[in-house]
């Protein structure tokens, strides 16, 4: 077990710069999520940590050892691939035992470790099967099993759940969380699914186009997104964004967009943005049907059981709000929305203020 530290990593393939100035730290035993849209370089970071690819610039520390120039073997990390990558000519047992055999462990030791991991993952009945005789979820477990028998310093997961159906994914998610609690090993987990990121992670590193957008615990990214990308990427349904101007009335700051006026009296330090164009971000759950500044008509009403999602057409564009599950009104009805809490997000030129 060990922590991980990456400093000023840079990587390009040919003329395309894929990663720029990537720096983050994962402390010992932490569950760190690399989150970002497809093609933003998540897999590339993981491969560089594992030693499968070399970076152009930057340093990687595992524990307090610099590993940038070491082979994957010397780094002692385990990786679970996006598409499992089980060895098709070996059965489950051999797949899991492979790395231990390479390490030249004794037969009895290997057997003990493999059986222990199989028990932990509940795949003891599958040990004699070939990968092609397994279902997707079972292959997934074997791939994880192959990683945990090694007792590595760091686990790397590359979208391990992306090939599973929704139900299996949520079960496996819980199991992964349980596994992490049990093993306590440092984990770096790549995903583009923000639900996975929010539920599993101790810390999220959010990337876009090869640049880190924000690092922090899930709640921090949700509650105070550092820029517009973070605000829109995290949270579902998406945050409502409205462009307008920062105005003042007596000693109160106001946000004004056409006829819409939002009171920002709870905020301070806005003086230097007075009269400038800003963007306001309001999470759907901060809005509720009541007398308030937003007027419009109901476009779509989604009853999803625990709550109701309202899509409201206003002069400021479509606004999404959440209502209680017993919300009665129908499409086409006039509605007014009010702020439930004063916590709105303000952005100037895309950056949080």
């Amino acid at each position, binding site marked *: 077990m060990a922590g991980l530290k990456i400093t000023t990593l840079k990587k390009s393939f040919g003329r395309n710069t894929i990663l720029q100035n990537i720096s983050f730290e994962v402390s010992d035993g932490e569950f760190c999520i690399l989150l970002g849209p497809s093609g933003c370089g998540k897999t590339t970071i993981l491969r560089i940590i594992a030693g499968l690819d070399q970076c152009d610039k930057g340093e990687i520390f595992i524990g307090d050892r610099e590993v940038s120039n070491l082979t994957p073997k010397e780094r002692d990390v385990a990786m679970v691939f996006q598409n499992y*990558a089980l060895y098709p000519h070996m059965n489950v047992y051999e797949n899991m035992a492979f790395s231990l055999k390479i390490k030249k462990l004794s037969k009895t030791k290997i057997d003990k470790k493999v059986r222990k991991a199989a028990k932990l993952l509940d795949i003891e009945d599958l040990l004699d099967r070939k990968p092609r005789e397994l279902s997707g979820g079972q292959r997934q477990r074997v791939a994880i099993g192959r990683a945990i028998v*090694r007792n590595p310093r760091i686990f790397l997961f590359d979208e391990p759940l992306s090939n599973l159906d929704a139900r299996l994914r949520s079960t496996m998610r819980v199991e992964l969380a349980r596994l992490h609690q049990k093993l306590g090993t440092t984990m770096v987990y790549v995903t583009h699914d923000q639900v996975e990121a929010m539920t599993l992670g101790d810390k999220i590193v959010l990337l876009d186009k090869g640049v880190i957008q924000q690092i922090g615990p899930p709640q921090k990214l949700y509650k105070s997104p550092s820029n517009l990308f973070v605000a829109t990427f995290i949270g579902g349904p998406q945050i409502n964004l409205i462009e307008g101007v920062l105005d003042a009335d007596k000693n109160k700051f106001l946000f004004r967009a056409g006829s819409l006026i939002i009171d920002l009296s709870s905020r301070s330090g806005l003086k230097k943005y007075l009269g400038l164009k800003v963007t306001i971000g309001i999470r759907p759950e901060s809005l509720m049907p009541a007398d308030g500044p937003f007027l419009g008509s109901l476009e779509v009403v989604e009853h999803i059981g625990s709550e109701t999602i309202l899509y409201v057409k206003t002069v400021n564009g479509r606004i999404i709000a959440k209502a209680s599950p017993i919300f009665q009104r129908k499409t086409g009805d006039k509605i007014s929305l009010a702020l439930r809490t004063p916590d709105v997000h303000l952005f100037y030129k895309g950056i949080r203020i």
Partner: protein
Amino acid sequence: MNAAIRCELRVARCGFKKIMMKLSKLIFCGVTFVIVFMSLLPFIWFVNTSLKTQAEVTAIPPTLAPSGSLHFYHSAIVKYDLLHYVKNSAIVAGATTFITLFISILSAYVLARLRLKYKGLIMGSLLLVSMFPQISIAGPVWKIMQSLGWLNSYQGLIIPYVTLTLPLGVWILTIFFKELPKELEDAARIDGCNRIQTLYKIVVPLAAPGIFTAAILVFIYAWNEFFFALLIMTQRKFQTLPIGIALFQGQYTLPWGEIAAASTVATVPLVLLVFLFQKRIVRGLSAGAVKG
């Protein structure tokens, strides 16, 4: 009324379709049978001849069914020293296959996986080399072997054979290696393998169908090759089967039956080889490795 007629028409059309389908199947089977029969005819003919007696071989009209005598096999072995040639062929073809495959596996892996400049050029020139007509390189090869003093030695034939079969081996294996999922090799490296271990523990087992295919083709080539063998092996001691059989024929004798028996002995191992490994040549071994 109308409906009934239409219905009947439809039934008739259905029947017609069925008949056509059966017919096309029949034609397909027939054509396949004819092709197979034609390619097997020489083989059937000399196997048949080899099982006759001396009298049956020269009988007019020819006897179709042989009496099943093994006389010619006996005499080919005793009088013409057939097994000596079999041994030479086995040594030459076996060594050629082994060396060609060993080199092919290593170079094909490099060509398939490592980032190299001029990869296309290398592959192209391999193809080009394999297209040289044998006759155009026969002279230089003979000269080289002569100056090395390797005329009439096993290596004198094995080395030209390896050279000639390498392009084929490298091509087949490069294509096979390229098709294997890359993640498996990444997984192996994470599991602690170095490049060589990855190659022989993961890549080679998975490419087994390709390796067997290449091995059989190379073996067949080396086993059957006549031209270079004739040039380089002038002493009986090192001659291979094709040369040996060709030399059964004396100035005044044409030992028809013995030649047929020897040809059978020369062909059967190849047929067996292909049958034995047919199952291994089927693809799809890598199914289940990765999703999809």
